[in-house]
């Protein structure tokens, strides 16, 4: 029979062990990059910009001749270095993101857009911390798709 005190000590130790293992695995796995991916549809429909992309369109909207920008998806992920993340895109396409480490103050990403069977686009970029890059534009109905990727690390 274990006393209540010993039981508490045991539980605490177990919790500590789990926490240590978690921390250790995090350190062992390497850096983790917070990556936000927003997929936007751009076309010449009635003028409109969805609320979730006002900041992005303020930056890049004037570059394009599109009048309507709609947010199709917005995902934020914690990606360990070297881990591939595959995300579905509209029209049966996929985006694969792989953070590959740091180069000076820039996060290196490998980005690939494909149909699953054949590649469409691939790039290696160095993204300044807390900034984003926009890739376009795979065709999407009457307009195009814009993919905005934002990276953050400590």
């Amino acid at each position, binding site marked *: 029979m274990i006393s209540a005190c010993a039981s508490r000590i045991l539980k605490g130790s177990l919790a500590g062990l789990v926490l240590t293992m978690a921390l250790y695995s995090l350190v062992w796995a390497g850096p983790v990059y917070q990556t936000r991916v927003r997929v936007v549809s751009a076309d010449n429909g009635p003028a409109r910009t969805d609320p979730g992309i006002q900041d992005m369109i303020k930056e890049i909207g004037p570059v394009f001749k599109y009048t309507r920008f709609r947010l199709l998806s917005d995902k934020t992920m914690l990606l360990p270095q070297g881990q591939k993340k595959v995300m579905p895109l509209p029209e049966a396409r996929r985006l694969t993101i792989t953070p590959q480490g740091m180069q000076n103050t820039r996060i290196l990403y490998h980005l690939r857009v494909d149909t699953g069977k054949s590649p469409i686009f691939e*790039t290696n970029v160095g993204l300044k911390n807390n900034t984003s890059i926009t890739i376009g534009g795979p065709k999407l109905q009457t307009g195009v798709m814009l993919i905005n990727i934002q990276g953050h690390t400590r």
Partner: protein
Amino acid sequence: MTCQKFSKEMISRFVDNELDETEHNAFIRHKAQCPDCCAVEAQFRQTDHIFEKQAEAMAEKLLKDAPEIFIKIKDRGHPPGIRGIIQRKVPGTPAILGMLSIAVVAIIMTLAPWRHGTLPTGGVVPSPSAVVNSVDAYGSSVMILETAETHHTIIWFSET
């Protein structure tokens, strides 16, 4: 509105002298007694005129606002190379003096502070949000842009 005798498309063709002789003369006789068809003809001519005037005004404005179009062609009367360029630009100046001035410019450019990303005022040239190390669009054309104000990087590929 037009009367039933001549359609608007026929009136449009009349404006462009594209009716055959019989139709053309028939319309001329008809419009003398038909205010509706006259009005349509007048409206078509007016729209042509207004649009053309707008285009003329725009062309004039573009020439005023934009730098003059100047196309330099290869002058076949001078030797090629730097000496040729100098002689073309400043005819009569000894070539050696011209070459010296180019050398001075080259030295200034080499030592210029902005080559190292520093503006003469001491400011730093902002870098783009992303640096593209490699890109492959599998046959599509690619363009890499940077927005003027926020230096946001855009990679654009034209899907084929």
